[in-house]
């Protein structure tokens, strides 16, 4: 195979008709180029969406209470109920494989009235009563001071961790927020930390305008007793929250005398399910990319096969001469196959190279013009490139197979008679 004369001949044949060779190569080139572009575009979309998910623990569900829709144990339907702090312990006891259970309470909300005062300044912010674990479920970086800890919870300290947006609204530029007091609905809280959330586009701004206080202090300060507004529950890695969410909801339904079949009494949002749905969407996208790319590549390969057939036809007489001189038919077959594979691989490599350059260009453009919604860092892995090369070699083999077969099918005597 690594025979100088054979390679010389391959090059002689392929360069004999430049225009035709280039046109033929273009089919394969274009196919692999499209494949690379489609895959990298899919990857870019995936990266963009995944960035939107940010660092949020995706194996998480959120759960809140609503009015019952079924009468049960003598209680009427349409009854409202609230989760209690006891529910947290009950879930922890009865459902295994849970990593975090964070009960949460909330004040204010989007478009709400001003509820926070500092000196002469006021602002409307979301105020959450939270446990320390929430920072692992809804990650944020503490840029100053600290986050809530269990001493705060146990001693019901009135402390607050404020967002960067809150700090900008209530403080002068350059002013130190730590150690100052803010008044949340008339109750003073000591600021002990400032956080910053990774920008999730869209609600990025809103994400910086939150205030976190210890769950217990919140309950006491705002008269929530043992009520729990909602819960964020994360399962252990390896157990999907989707598979155990019915158990969790079953526990709270039992505790609150809600009919087990009442689907609407407990509202929930399953982040993992959404995440999986997005994941499967990307799977489908990848499939489409491969499907379209390989079909385009196939038409290129058929083009190569076609041209090789013509080449063989043109060289019928030459093949006849060579066989009359005593060349082994297998050697002729190998020659045709190698020409085909060589042409396919060369044009495929050109496609891969240009595709990579194209991706590089797009990335440079993206870097220059800042982030774009739902699209980031399009790329293809080395595995894809190696896979594409394997596809090329196999398709080159297929493209050459029929022509090679037809090359040795003609008897030398008939080949010699061809003019």
């Amino acid at each position, binding site marked *: 195979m690594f025979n100088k004369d054979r390679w010389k001949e391959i090059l002689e044949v392929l360069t004999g008709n430049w225009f035709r060779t280039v046109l033929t190569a273009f089919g394969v080139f274009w196919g692999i180029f499209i494949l690379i572009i489609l895959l990298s575009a899919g990857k870019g979309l995936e990266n963009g969406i995944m960035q939107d998910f940010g660092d949020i623990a995706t194996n998480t569900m959120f759960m809140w209470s609503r009015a019952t829709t079924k009468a049960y144990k003598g209680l009427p339907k349409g009854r409202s109920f609230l989760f209690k702090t006891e529910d947290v312990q009950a879930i922890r006891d009865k459902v295994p494989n849970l990593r975090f259970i964070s009960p949460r309470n909330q004040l204010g909300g989007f478009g709400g009235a001003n509820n926070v005062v500092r000196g002469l300044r006021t602002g409307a912010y979301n105020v959450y009563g939270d446990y320390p674990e929430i920072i692992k479920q809804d990650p944020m970086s503490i840029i100053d001071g600290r986050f809530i800890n269990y001493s705060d919870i146990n001693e019901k300290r009135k402390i607050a961790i404020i967002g960067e947006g809150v700090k900008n609204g209530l403080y002068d530029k350059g002013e130190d927020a730590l150690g100052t007091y803010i008044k949340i609905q008339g109750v003073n809280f000591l600021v002990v930390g400032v956080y910053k959330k990774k920008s999730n586009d869209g609600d990025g701004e809103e994400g910086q305008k939150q205030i976190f206080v210890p769950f217990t202090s919140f309950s006491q300060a705002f008269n929530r007793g043992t009520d729990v507004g909602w819960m964020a529950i994360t399962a252990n890695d390896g157990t999907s929250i989707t598979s155990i969410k019915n158990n969790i909801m079953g526990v709270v339904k039992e505790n609150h005398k809600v009919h087990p079949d009442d689907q609407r009494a407990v509202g929930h949002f399953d982040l993992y399910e959404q995440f999986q749905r997005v994941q499967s969407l990307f799977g489908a996208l990848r499939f489409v990319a491969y499907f379209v790319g390989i079909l385009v590549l196939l038409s290129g390969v058929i083009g190569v096969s076609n041209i090789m057939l013509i080449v063989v036809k043109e060289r019928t007489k030459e093949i006849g001469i060579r066989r*009359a*001189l*005593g060349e*082994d038919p297998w050697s002729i077959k190998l020659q045709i196959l190698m020409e085909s594979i060589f042409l396919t691989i060369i044009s495929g490599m050109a496609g891969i190279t240009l595709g990579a350059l194209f991706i590089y260009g797009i990335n440079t453009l993206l870097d220059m013009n800042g982030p774009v919604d739902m699209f980031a860092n399009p790329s293809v892995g080395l595995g894809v490139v190696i896979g594409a090369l394997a596809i090329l070699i196999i398709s080159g083999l297929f493209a050459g197979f029929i022509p090679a077969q037809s090359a040795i099918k003609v008897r030398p*005597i008939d080949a*010699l008679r061809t003019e």
Partner: protein
Amino acid sequence: MIEIKELHKSYKMGANSLHVLKGLNFSIKEGELVAIMGSSGSGKSTLLNILGMLDEADTGDYTLDGVPIKNLNETKAAKYRNKFLGFIFQSFNLINYKSAMENVALPLYYQKVPRKQREEKALKYLTQVGLKEWAEHLPNELSGGQKQRVAIARAMAAEPKVLLADEPTGALDSKTSYEVMDLIQNINDQGNTILVVTHEEDIAQMCKRIVHLKDGVIVEDKKVEQVRAAQYVQ
């Protein structure tokens, strides 16, 4: 060297079958220069193709240098052709994109002779046919006579047992024809067995023996006084 017995060959032409060779018998000894003559359709090319293992006889025996040539598959036929036979065609059949030397070296390439030896040998035979200076030229840069001389060098390169020439002068004018025949005679003088198919009487007279074919049978097989081509060549 060559022995054939009761050789039959017919071609199917649609519904009809054309009986081309009707039981040929003859033998050729080493060192002979034999002309096979006949008008077109007499079966001379068919005979040559069978002798050259390019075609197969329907029935009959063919022995070449003591080896029975029978039931060959393509790979084996290719090997025998390479080892036993050298072909000279009417239309030269050189490979256009290869230089004269590469053309001559081809049979050696198929014998897997190393490149250097191959080139040495090819050059030697090109020198013998007087085309050493033309070694690097492509066939379309050569005249008809030169092309045929390259083809003869190529046929000799593998040092075959028998040279088979199919109308070697058919595409040449008489002057170059005689030059080519002179070359063929010289090669024969060195002891090579040569078979020439021709329909030209003067070419046939330059061989040592003439076999006359007519309608698929041998009508005449005679030894002749060889006319040397050299006297026509200045």
